[in-house]
């Protein structure tokens, strides 16, 4: 048996030719045979035949697919490129941002810089004038003339330098002093170097005067002032507008910020991280809300006007329900009824037990969030018998409206005085 030729896979072109009917019978047989042998060829062949039957332009499809593939391969690359750009942009942005922030922090100092510059300018011009004035003077020696011109050059140079320094953002406060110093140094020796008649000297004097002014102003300008971005701690006090009494436990907050602070027993408060021009609000029941724009780290006491309207609008809601209303701890029946109750209870006790010593009991206790009374204390160390009776009396009528602030129940301590007299 003749050895079979080594199996050769037909190419796609051959398959296409087969489908187009361009092959010789022998070649057709070869392809058919390999199709029978090889699933891949079989599938391809069938696909090509179906394409022909559906009269789909195989070449056009092929071109389109190649384009799509090329695009796909390229898009992956393009996706990589923006990554480089993005990271570069991010770095640039970060550097720019930090530069800007540094600049912002130095706002007060940079503001002072132009002042020095402006002051410096007329200064050196005066020096120039001196030179010009001195030039026509016949008594002036050549050397002195050269000296004065040199000075002008020097002054110009210095000015240039200071401008350059400005551009380089050398801390401007230092610069202000430095530049004014140099100006002074240049001008001061002028009357000495140029032994000239009066006018020149006066001009020079004026010039040096100017320098001093410039220096002072420069220093003033560079002195720390509050910029819009600096954070500081704000201290203040909240007082009643009428009797100047300190308002305790009032909430003070910045608009746009969640944190609020309460005033202490003297009505004082400290708010941290405050910016200039931020709005401060003081809210307290019974007073008209106050709003202040912050200009400095210390402010005059905030005077609160009483607001009767607000008081009348306070609504007490049921237990368990929360509302954004504050309620103070009180007996349920009200203070008047409760005081009457205490009085009569004390009275009955005395009449029933005439032998016990008389006295007053300062009774301290806590009303917890459930309205229960606990932690009784004999605050004034009264007679234990009376203290016991006082506790009994208070416990007997255990009905307290629990205090809540901003809709939150709170345990609260209270102190009652019961007199057994």
């Amino acid at each position, binding site marked *: *048996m003749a*050895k*079979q030729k080594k*199996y050769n*896979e037909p190419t*796609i072109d051959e*398959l*296409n030719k087969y489908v187009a009917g361009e092959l010789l*019978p*022998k070649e*057709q*047989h070869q392809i*058919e*045979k390999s199709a*029978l*042998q*090889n*699933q*891949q060829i*079989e*599938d*391809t*062949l*069938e*696909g*090509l035949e*179906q*394409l022909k039957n*559906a009269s*789909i332009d*195989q070449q056009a*499809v*092929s071109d*389109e*697919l*190649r384009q*799509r*593939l*090329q695009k*796909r*391969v390229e898009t*992956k*690359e393009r996706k990589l490129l923006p990554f480089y750009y993005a990271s570069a942009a991010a770095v640039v942005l970060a550097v720019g941002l930090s530069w800007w922030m540094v600049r912002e922090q130095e706002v007060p100092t940079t503001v002072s810089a132009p002042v020095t510059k402006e002051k410096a300018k007329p200064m050196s011009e005066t020096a120039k004038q001196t030179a010009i004035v001195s030039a026509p003077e016949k008594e002036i020696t050549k050397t002195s003339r050269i000296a004065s011109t040199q000075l002008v050059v020097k002054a110009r140079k210095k000015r240039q330098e200071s401008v350059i320094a400005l551009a380089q953002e050398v801390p401007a406060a230092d610069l202000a002093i430095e530049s004014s110093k140099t100006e002074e140094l240049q001008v001061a020796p002028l009357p000495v170097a140029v032994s000239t008649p009066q006018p020149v000297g006066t001009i020079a004097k004026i010039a040096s005067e100017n320098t001093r002014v410039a220096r002072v102003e420069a220093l003033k300008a560079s002195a720390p002032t509050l910029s819009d971005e600096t954070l500081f701690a704000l201290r203040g006090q909240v007082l009643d507008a009428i009797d100047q009494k300190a308002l305790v436990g009032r909430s003070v907050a910045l608009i746009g910020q969640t944190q609020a602070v309460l005033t202490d027993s003297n009505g004082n408060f400290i708010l941290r991280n405050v910016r200039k021009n931020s709005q401060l609000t003081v809210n307290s029941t019974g007073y008209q809300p106050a709003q202040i724009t912050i200009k400095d780290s210390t402010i005059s006491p905030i005077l609160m006007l009483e607001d009767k309207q607000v008081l009348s609008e306070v609504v007490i809601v049921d237990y368990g329900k929360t509302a954004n209303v504050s309620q103070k701890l009180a007996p349920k029946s009200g203070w008047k009824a409760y005081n009457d109750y205490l009085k009569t209870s004390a009275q009955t006790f005395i009449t029933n037990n005439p032998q016990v010593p008389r006295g007053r009991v300062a009774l301290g206790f806590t009303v917890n969030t459930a309205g229960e009374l606990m932690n009784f204390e004999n605050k004034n160390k009264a007679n234990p018998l009376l203290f016991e009776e006082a506790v009994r009396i208070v416990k007997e009528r255990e009905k307290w409206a629990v205090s809540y602030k901003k809709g939150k129940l709170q345990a609260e301590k209270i102190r009652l005085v019961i007199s057994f007299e």
Partner: protein
Amino acid sequence: MFLKILRRKTNLTDAEYLSAYQRTGDLEGLGALYERHIDMVFAVCFKYLRDEDRAKDAVMEVFEQLVTDLKIVQIQNFKSWLHSVARNFCLMQLRQKKVTMSDDGIFEDEAYESFIAQSPEKEDWEIEHQLADLGDCMQTLAHEQRQSVELFYFQQLCYQQIAAQTGFAISRVKSYIQNGKRNLKLCMEGKKHG
């Protein structure tokens, strides 16, 4: 870059492309390799999906599969592997679309063909034995199948010629050969074991 691709296209074998891609992950190389076989993939996809646009999309998705798979998988014969990837992809799509297709001829075994092709390596007595078996088995085939198989394998005619000679339709000829081939294989295996 473009020249590089051209050079690669002419010089590199599939295996070289593959190892290059596994080394560098360079998509352009993979794209060039895929372009070689893109017509085949499209034809296969069209065969199964029977829709031009779906087949086109399938071609692109198969490429995406290659991008991930080829990083891990070691492949001996890229073309046949690619064919099975494309076919499986299409079959998965059909399964998702719940389009039922008869798997007639799709999963046909190739054992018989390789058996024939590899027979020269066997001992003479074995071949003789097998030829005898083959002769017996040929007699068991249906008339049309035997005729088609004989004309195709023994006389090496193409489908067209067989159709002209026998008067069968070309598609019939093909299925006669396929079925005859399968029956022969079953018969031969039965003889071998029995």
